[in-house]
């Protein structure tokens, strides 16, 4: 295997693993958050406006961790700095 193949293969594999593992935690956390919010909505329907607003803000906060993983894997696939560096080096040779 030459360097290009190794870089390409590791980038693709790691991109998949990053999104796969990175979304597990936020998925569980969002499930818990929504479940708790639904319980409190059922108990206190009057406070629905506050609960919904806090829920949305909290969900966006939780979701952003998954989004970071997604951004990292997208960078690995579409804008890989190591890949570009290697290509530039190979072209310069």
């Amino acid at each position, binding site marked *: 295997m030459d360097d290009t193949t190794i870089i390409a293969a590791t980038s693709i594999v790691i991109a998949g693993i990053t999104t796969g593992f990175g979304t597990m935690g936020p998925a569980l956390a969002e499930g818990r958050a929504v479940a708790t919010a639904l319980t409190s909505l059922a108990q206190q329907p009057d406070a629905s*406006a*506050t609960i919904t*607003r806090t829920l*949305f*803000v909290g969900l*966006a*906060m939780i*979701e*952003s961790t998954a*989004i*970071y993983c*997604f*951004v990292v894997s*997208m*960078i690995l696939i*579409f*804008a890989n700095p190591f890949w570009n560096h290697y290509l530039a080096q190979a072209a310069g040779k």
Partner: protein
Amino acid sequence: MHLSPDQILYWQFGFVKLNATIVFTWGLMLVLALGSKLATRKLSDDVKPSRWQGVLEIIVLGIEKQIATVGLQDPRRYLGFLGTLFLFVAAASICTIIPGYEPPTGSLSTTVALALCVFVAVPIFGILGRGLRGYLKSYVQPTVIMLPFNIISEVSRTLALAVRLFGNMMSGTMILAILVSITPLLFPIVMTVLGLLTGIVQAYIFAILAAVYIAAVMRASEPDPGQEPTPAPEPGS
């Protein structure tokens, strides 16, 4: 396939580049500014206002109410800044139903610029509202030990604000592009609808988080010197 609309170049002269991000940002600014200008041309306090005036009143009053629920007194002061943030991000994601349009918020440059606006606006509002001493005191709020952490949180939440919006908008267009190449029928439409929903939610989140940060800096220095200071709930980033 491209990661952001920065890579679509329309015109280039030396180092001056005109890419899709700039074009669509200015287009949106033009539409928003001209639209509100036209709608507010004939304002009336009649019993029956014109339709456009009614729409704008609903939007402005809705934003004002949301700002007030975060805990900011006198929402009119913040309406210009927070309302502009919300309307720009929301319009940027609503316009994705127009074919050939790329949301400018799908580029990291735009979102970093918006986040930097928040980064600068929070101290300005804090100093205007509480004075320079009061604002600086908010950095050592629970104890002096928290000073470095407060500074770090200031930077990290700006970064989080930028990357969150960028990631959401970019993932929407990216998934759409992938789906069009796999299943060109029907599924992209469903994802577009989902993208509209997440776009609006993200616009709301962006504006609300900016409001929460401003409210935190206003509240942190609120307790009187005579009373026991109560630590303000610091929103994590």
